[in-house]
């Protein structure tokens, strides 16, 4: 099944598991670390870029939370330095607030979560996990990163232009976004469009690469049903990106034409149709939601199996669930538009399809529980984050049922209930999985271990404050608190909610502060972390057979794959893991393969124990 291709690894006869520094490499610094075609370097580049934008998105959220927690009060600590177009004597202005709302969403979705999941781990993991030397199109891959960077900085530049940054929400609903007369924002809105067109191109190049690589470059024996779930989910995600991003780009080009050359696709005075934008945007936007969660699900599956020391429960149904989500994800976009004025009969259809898509998600949750059942659960930092991912995704998934039921959505649509829901999916879900994945593969990326102790401190602070921030937002929404409003106290019926808003804001500041621990741990471990060894988590994946960090070209000899990635606690071997590429004696009666030397970090699994 897998295609065998000539290997171009430059590790030149290096022994399996040898020292990374021993291999020679005559590329210049620039080719090696800046304009690199090595998927691992590109993955790390994406990681650094998107963590920076994650931080920026967080800062924007803090500014919003200040206004909501302490409406009309001047910003503390340097807020007075903001220009009069953003804040008056330190008090955030409504137009700046709408820009904050818009750009928080835009940066988090397009420049933080999406590149973190797809750009970072798609790049880093796919070739390593399938036993390939690199991506199928390394130069395309480099282009993908070097398009994302200017797109990000272009997006950032919008804050500095006259009229302020885009202020029509991350969904950029026309006509507000299409005509500067309505928003007061001219240049910022155009910058938003151009930046996302460039980013779309970057994503498409990445997606083409992932799909081709997974189809073509799997090592011998790496059948489709021996792929790790992380790779399966990245594969389906890449298909979604490839099909969805062009829709967004097309819609944005139409929007840009409306803004600049006088077309009126979305401007009703001359016959345009605002709902067309919503249909196009959400036709992209709902697959995008799954782009933002599927890789998280896949990587969490890998980590949960590892942490539970147990094969993943229902591997096949997990794969089928991923594929089902990939298909059903195209038929549910209308549930974002129940209140839009779209024909209500259509609403019924979308309600049914939306409720159905919760089934594969539920299957995945049950399978994660099944994986932990009768496991031997190790609470390493990535596992903690993965467990948090499951428990928070459950909340996000269940709260989604409320808005899928269209009559209930009439009430909670565009309220904080939605804000709570989407943050339970994107922060509680995606971001916890990202923390899990970063801490899990950090040793492979940098060859160093992150501090376990500080990792746990960061986890617990994040987990507690995260819930303090987002759980009460359900209550805000149930009281009828609209989204995206600058000052809820304008409404008498929302005034009694101010203490809750203040509580949320203070929790949000604590949540933000807790992330400093992660940043410090990330940076200091890079320089001062303990050496990771090849396989600190005792994982079965092919990447863990390589030195940390793996050399350019990855595998010195093409690995052969004998089994799936989740053979933990297999009765065939003494230790509780069985790497995908280890050849076992063919007959079941043969003596067990000798145990390999145990790297540190994990407590020894007591192979001599008589209990099994």
């Amino acid at each position, binding site marked *: 099944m897998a295609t065998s291709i000539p290997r171009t690894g430059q590790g030149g006869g290096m022994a399996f598991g040898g020292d990374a520094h021993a291999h020679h490499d005559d590329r210049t610094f620039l080719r090696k670390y800046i304009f690199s075609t090595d998927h691992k370097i590109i993955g790390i580049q994406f990681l650094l870029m998107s963590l920076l934008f994650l931080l920026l998105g967080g800062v924007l959220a803090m500014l919003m939370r200040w206004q909501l927690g302490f409406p009309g009060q001047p910003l503390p600590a340097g807020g007075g330095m903001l220009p009069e*177009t953003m804040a008056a004597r330190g*008090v955030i202005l*409504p137009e700046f607030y709408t820009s904050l709302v818009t750009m928080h969403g835009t940066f988090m979705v397009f420049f933080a979560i999406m590149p973190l999941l797809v750009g970072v781990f798609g790049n880093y993991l796919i070739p390593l996990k399938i036993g390939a030397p690199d991506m199928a199109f390394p130069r395309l891959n480099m282009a993908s990163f070097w398009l994302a960077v200017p797109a990000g900085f272009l997006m*950032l530049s919008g804050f*500095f*232009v006259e009229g302020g940054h885009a202020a029509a929400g991350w969904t950029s609903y026309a006509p507000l976004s299409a005509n500067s*007369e309505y*928003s*007061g924002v001219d240049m910022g809105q155009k910058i938003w469009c151009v930046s996302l067109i460039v980013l779309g191109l970057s994503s498409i190049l990445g997606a083409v690469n992932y799909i081709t690589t997974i189809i073509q470059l799997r090592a011998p024996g790496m059948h489709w049903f021996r792929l790790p779930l992380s790779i399966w989910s990245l594969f389906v995600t890449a298909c979604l990106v490839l099909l969805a991003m062009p829709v967004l780009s097309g819609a944005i080009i139409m929007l840009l034409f409306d803004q600049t050359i006088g077309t009126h696709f979305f401007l009703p005075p001359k016959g345009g149709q605002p709902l067309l934008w919503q249909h196009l945007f959400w036709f992209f936007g709902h697959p995008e939601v799954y782009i933002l969660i599927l890789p998280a699900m896949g990587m969490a599956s890998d980590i949960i199996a590892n942490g539970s020391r147990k094969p993943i429960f229902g591997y096949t149904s997990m794969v089928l669930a991923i594929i089902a989500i990939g298909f059903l994800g195209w038929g549910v976009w209308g549930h974002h538009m129940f209140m839009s004025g779209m024909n209500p009969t259509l609403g019924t259809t979308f309600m049914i399809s939306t409720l159905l898509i919760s089934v594969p998600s539920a299957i995945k949750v049950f399978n994660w529980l099944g994986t932990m059942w009768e496991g031997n659960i190790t609470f390493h930092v990535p596992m903690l984050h993965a467990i948090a991912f499951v428990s928070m995704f459950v909340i996000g998934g269940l709260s989604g049922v409320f808005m899928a039921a269209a009559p209930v959505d009439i009430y909670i649509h565009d309220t904080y209930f939605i804000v709570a829901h989407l943050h339970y999916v994107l922060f509680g879900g995606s971001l916890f999985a990202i923390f899990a994945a970063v801490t899990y593969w950090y040793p492979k990326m940098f060859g160093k271990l992150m501090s376990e102790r500080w990792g746990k401190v960061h986890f617990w602070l994040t987990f507690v404050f995260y819930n303090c921030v987002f759980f009460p937002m359900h209550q805000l929404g149930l009281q009828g608190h609209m989204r995206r409003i600058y000052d809820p106290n304008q409404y008498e019926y929302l005034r009694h909610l101010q203490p809750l808003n203040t509580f949320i804001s203070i929790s949000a500041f604590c949540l933000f502060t807790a992330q400093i621990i992660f940043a410090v741990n990330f940076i200091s471990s890079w320089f001062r972390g303990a050496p990771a060894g090849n396989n600190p988590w005792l994982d079965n994946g092919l990447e863990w057979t390589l030195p940390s960090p793996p050399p350019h070209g990855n595998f010195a000899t093409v690995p052969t794959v004998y089994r799936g990635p989740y053979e933990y606690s297999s009765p065939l071997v003494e230790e509780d893991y069985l790497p995908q590429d280890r050849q076992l004696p063919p007959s079941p009666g043969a003596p067990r393969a000798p145990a390999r030397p145990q790297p540190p970090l994990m407590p020894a699994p007591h192979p001599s124990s008589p209990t099994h």
Partner: protein
Amino acid sequence: MKRAILCILVLSAACSKGGGGTDKSAAGSDSGGAAATAAPAASTGPTGDGVITGTVHFAGTAPANPTIDMSEEAACKAKYTSNPVDSQYVVNNGGLGYTFVYVKSGLPAGATYAPPATPAVIDQRGCEYHPRVFGMQVGQKLEIKNDDPLLHNIKAVPHVNRGFNISQPTAGMTTTRTFDKQEVMVPFQCNVHGWMQAHAGVVSHPFYAVSSPDGKYTIKGLPPGTYTIEAWHEKLGPQTTTVTVGKGESKTADFNYSPKA
């Protein structure tokens, strides 16, 4: 890392400060007719001691001004003892107030006049603009003030100049903007209170006035010459007349409006 972001924010702040206050649009076509200058250059244009005075007459009975329903803006309604009206027509003793009168042409070509140091002021008080019609010079600062404890947005919708749309959510706020081209008139509106309308006559010289409630106006400091004078009223539109002013002379130029058919 946090500090880096702070730096970026501060940097962004500095940048937008540079671009936010003044609109720097490229010089384009000018519908006002007179020469338009972007930079507040030094005065080269001639001045003198000629004076034009006059009265804007209004014949007949002025249409009734519509009342404004401010019931949903208690803070504004409280500032009125009777029902507030939208003062489109201010007529006293046959004179029409709130008419903008300015020298449309006749000044030497290329004459420039430095804008005054004192800003023009528009105040939002009781959910009305004060004044509702005013003149200002190209490059002169316009101070926009909010005396109401509620949100007003100020949307300038010029055709020649660069427009803006800003908000003032609380009382006591002041924002400054300028216009860099001649434009008669620049409309201002508040979208929170649809009835709020103001108009600014932006001209490139200091020879303009707004008629008093009984229709009187005075333009001073003119050099000798023959001038086209235009009057503009928000409901009744423009009228022009020609006046020749000699050195030290004081001339009269009246305008005659009648109710719209």
